[in-house]
């Protein structure tokens, strides 16, 4: 499996550290109740198909990426920098 880092180019997946679903970018507000935090920290869907998750380019440029991939076909559909999402004003 190879991931295309938006900065470094196509790299082996062993250069990356897997973190989890991109839900982690949607942090609840400080006043959110315990249910929201429980959901944020622990509750995940187990998707067969397209998922978006966070990967860290550990032995490369040290950037966090959002990778869209298909867990059924193993296709990598897109990769983007979390930092770029912030620039574009996506809530992160």
């Amino acid at each position, binding site marked *: 499996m190879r991931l295309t880092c938006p*900065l*470094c*180019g196509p*790299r*082996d997946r*062993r*250069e990356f550290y897997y973190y989890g679903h991109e839900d982690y970018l949607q942090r609840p507000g400080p006043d959110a109740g315990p249910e929201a935090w429980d959901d944020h920290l622990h509750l995940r869907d187990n998707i067969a198909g397209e998922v978006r998750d966070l990967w860290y380019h*550990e*032995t*490369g*440029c*040290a*950037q966090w990426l959002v990778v869209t991939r298909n867990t059924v076909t193993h296709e990598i559909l897109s990769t983007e*920098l979390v*930092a770029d999402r912030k620039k574009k004003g996506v809530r992160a």
Partner: protein
Amino acid sequence: MPELIAKTALLGKKPVTFAGTTLAEGDAGPVASIALFPGQDKAAAKALKPLAFPAPNSFTESEAARLVWTGRDQAFLIGAEPPALGGIAAVTDQSGGWATLTLTGPMAVEALMRLVPLDLRATFAVGQAARAPLGHMQSILFRTAPDSFTLMVFRSMARTAWHEIEVALRSLAARAALA
């Protein structure tokens, strides 16, 4: 005041040559990380002249210094003291934190490709740089001539990096001798 002597990571290590390819320790001199603050590209370009801030996966050089891309909006200035960059970039002294190795010769590409999972043959031209693993080590790699590479690893990894590259060179030379 005591006079302190800066020592390179592999001080006293003599260069080794196998099949015409030489592994040696380099002395980078001063190294500074320059991490641009958001939106400061133009101000940085002005302050860093004559060096241009490198595009990802490349380096720029002047007579005295190199500016090597090391991450998003970040580059290492090697070989010269950084200019004043207050408000433009976060500057961190990295001198002595990195070990520098040079590998020069006809087997440099083959030896490195045993350790670095990049295609260094066609797609990694002179002037290019990469953050890439060397075995299990994080490294900065750049090509300074068609048969010459410079590698930087964390200082604590210096001897491991040397060993790994030397083993690769030795086995390639042994194969070449048999052929």
